[in-house]
């Protein structure tokens, strides 16, 4: 019989206990928008499914005293999009989250799930990586924090150990004159997996010179990339056309994509540069208006 054990614990500790003690394959159920499809097709055959949506703290989105944010791993995209302060501080992160599916998927899909599904094309992840977000991981040995880009290690695989799961994602406090943006290329306007995604997060000084930048690319390598060379192309510049051209070239150069049903190596490489440039312009303009 192809069923599984289903548990919906009320606390993080209980969830860790279940996951750590599981015999066979255990899966965490957050929004379920990936897991249920895998259950249907037979791609996932878990023995235990742990639903984390009944853990109160995992559904919270809260601001920290320092001005950052903690997003519970089971908060759905729709709630993230409705969080006005978050959307104001991190519009790029939020637009990445809101691009996962359309309205119905938004009612369920979570950033924690998107991160741990470990698809290189996950729309939420580049924005988080560019933002310098931290994943809070609970496990049998207590909690630990890692940069989000450390969570996925290859398509469908994460660095989480048995019994561990992501409980929250932390966004740092927002400096003045900062902005971020995420863009992706899909053949339709909605309901597609990104062929390429690009997120840019930057901070300007009072003169408009870029002092800090992070650039992240999706769907151009086995995992979402953090591209230092692309960020360096922006830092110290006014994010003018010359800098943007360098950024685009660095982004394209960082790509290690594959040919697949969604796009070609050539296309992904080229469009990664285009999207990085366009996202940088949006981030720059947001930073300028965020004085």
């Amino acid at each position, binding site marked *: 019989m192809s069923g599984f054990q289903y548990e919906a614990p009320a606390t993080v500790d209980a969830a860790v206990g279940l996951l750590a003690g599981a015999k066979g394959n255990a899966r965490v159920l957050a929004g379920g928008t990936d897991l249920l499809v895998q259950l249907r097709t037979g791609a996932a055959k878990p023995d235990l499914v742990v639903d984390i949506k009944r853990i109160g703290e995992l559904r919270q989105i809260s601001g920290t005293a320092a001005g950052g944010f903690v997003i519970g791993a089971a908060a759905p995209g729709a709630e993230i999009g409705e969080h006005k302060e978050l959307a104001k501080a991190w519009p790029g992160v939020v637009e990445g989250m809101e691009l996962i599916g359309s309205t119905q998927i938004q009612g369920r899909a979570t950033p924690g799930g998107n991160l741990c599904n470990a698809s290189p094309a996950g729309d939420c992840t580049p924005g988080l990586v560019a933002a310098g977000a931290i994943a809070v991981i609970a496990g049998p040995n207590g909690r630990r924090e890692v940069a989000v880009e450390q969570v996925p290690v290859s398509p469908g695989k994460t660095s989480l150990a048995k019994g561990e799961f992501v409980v929250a994602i932390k966004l740092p406090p927002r400096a003045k004159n900062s902005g971020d943006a995420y863009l992706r290329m899909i*053949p339709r306007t909605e309901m597609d997996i990104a062929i390429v995604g690009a997120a840019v997060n930057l901070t300007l000084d009072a003169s408009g010179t870029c002092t800090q930048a992070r650039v992240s690319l999706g769907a151009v390598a086995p995992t979402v990339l953090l591209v230092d060379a692309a960020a360096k192309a922006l830092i110290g510049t006014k994010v003018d056309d010359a800098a943007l051209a360098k950024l685009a070239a660095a982004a394209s150069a960082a790509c290690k994509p594959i040919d697949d049903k969604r*796009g070609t190596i*050539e296309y992904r490489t080229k469009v990664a540069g285009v999207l990085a440039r366009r996202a940088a312009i949006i981030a720059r303009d947001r930073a300028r208006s965020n004085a």
Partner: protein
Amino acid sequence: MAGYEGKSFKWVGTRPVRPDGVDKVTGRATYGADMNLPGQLTGRILRSPHAHAKILSIDTSKAEKLKGVKAVVTSKDFPQMHRGVLPGDEGVNFHYLSSNIMARDKVLYDGHAVAAVAATSAAIAEEALALIDVKYEVLPHVIDVDDAMKPGAPLLHDDVFTTGVNPKPDKPSNIVQRVHMALGDAEAAFKDADIVIERSFKSKAVHQGYIEPHAVVAEWSEDGQCRIWCSSQGHFMVRALTSRLLNMEAAQIRVMPAEIGGGFGGKTIVFIEPTAVLLARKASLPVRIVMSRDEVFRATGPAPGSSMDVKIGAKKDGTLVAAVGEFRFQAGAFPGSPVGPACMAAFGPYALANVTSAGYEAVTNRPLCYSYRAPGAPLSSFAVESVIDEIAQKLNIDPMEMRIKNGSKEGTQMVYGPKLKAVGNLECLKAIQNHPINKIPLGPNQGRGLAAGFWFNLGGQSSAVVNIAEDGTANIMTGSPDIGGSRASMALMAAEVLGIDYSKVRPIVGDTSSVGFCEITHGSRVTFATGMAIIQAAEDVVLQCRQRVAAMWEVDVDAVKWEDGHACPAGANAGDQKPLSLAKIAAKASRTGGPLVGSAAINAGGAGPAFGVHICDVEVDPETGGVTVLRYVAAQDAGKAIHPSYVEGQIQGGVAQGIGWALNEEYIYGADGRLQNSGFLDYRIPVASDLPMIDALILEVPNPGHPFGVRGVGEVPIVPPLAAIANAIARATGARMMDLPMSPPKILAAIDAKK
């Protein structure tokens, strides 16, 4: 048939709420998968993971022993069919049809059915499938039509011999047929041309993409009677094919038409119904099979991919002098691609004295290629309309003027022989020419594209019954599944003839045991042919009413005329009688001869061809190749629009499907011959945010073959969009796309190649 020329209509042409509407907005309407009979089992089908393989053995013993499994069937349970086509079978090869429903000695495509189970739950049925052990010997496969036609290509069948060639081949081949038709001498006429353009085109297979997966519930009783509920485009087709395939008598099978959630040609043949009947018979319990979306993509009847060459010559002033097209279509694993109609329709919008249209069909390791809205025409038309546009561009002539100058009209001889009767091609062209869209200035990276399209439209067999109730209200019944509002048009036509209020007419779709035979809902035939049957059945009632009133009034029937739902004196010789309403006549029916029942059973000829002309504006992102459709206008000759809202809906829906075909829809196969995008995530049909409003202009050039002037409207709207979009992209970017779909990577590569 009474003449209605010049008559002003009271109901026809209005837009009332459809009779089945409330059930559909409340969730009450019953589609195939909504049936749930007591004791019903769940049926599931095991499908081939290989594109082409010999079946060495199938061991179902473990599955049969699983608790909860009530029946397992394989091809051994299906009667052997005669190999080849028998006279009277209208070209249907039942051996192939049976072999498609359940693979016999070979599997011919990824997704080909090899066994089926019925069990007490879906979970058990799935577990049982996993216990069936099939041993395969994998064979080389062929996916592309040009590859399949090459000598030495992996051969799918040993009994396909190319037809249409001389001498008759003595070796089997993947090439099923060669079609060839010509007027004049095109090759000789090219020397009179000032410009000749020859281009090659490719396209991928596409799916109809109906949202409702195929679903069937079958019930078998020990006296050999069988009932089937299913969503199809023709329950009489389901009965006919199921009875032949299972060696049953047609009258043993009663097929109940469920509501159908879209078909577009894809539900004009059986895929799962005979399997459900066999499982129900073995299990002695009702069985429901509902396809998953994956199965729908892998194992139903998509439209073929193609490879096409078109060469057209013109004078400097844009006069077309010669045209040649060769259209090579994939069949799927079995013959059946619409290459004949593609050849016939390709040059339909043009009056050409010298034209040759030829086609080939070749079997490939793909699911059966079957009908999709104006089958064949969108592809051949894409190629022809692209070349026409390029000629206009090169000659610096307005593409609209060029189409009007060369446009086909009444009296034009078509490449397949006959001459056109009254048609609306020029009217559509002029309507688009005069549309305000032409005045909207285009911005950078924007382009405007124009294309025309033709489709034959079909008639055929239909039956209808009009039952008048004792209060003068009417129940009308046909056997044509209502796929997009045809109940409303049937009721409007009956109300018109009977002269009673639309709200007093209740239309139903009868099952195969309740109403006379009706052909499938296809070929844009229902409003035309089944509508004609309804008109005749209603006229039959009117005649009976006049006869009965004549008897009451003791006058000749000619002295009684029918006006606005009343029997009235036709002249002074009928005396000074007060008009009698249908309700009053019905109330007295028992005394005047019994129930008032009108019926008609016809084989309708006289279907009038449809023309459509489309114009659209697109914007192309030069850095990503992404296309945004900004505006879209479609003009179409409907003959007479019975319910204009649903005519507009057919046009808008066809356009949307055509845009999807043009831009993003495609079957993607891996090197292993397996389909990679068998879901709505990666098979990209247009979503709401992809499209603009679609302005549908209805023109009415009456079809002389129908009492109200009706032409079919459902199919031609999908013909022009492929080229209209391609022509707009060509004008926006300077790059002419000759490979469908025009997805962003291809467009970007073409733009970059121009640089």
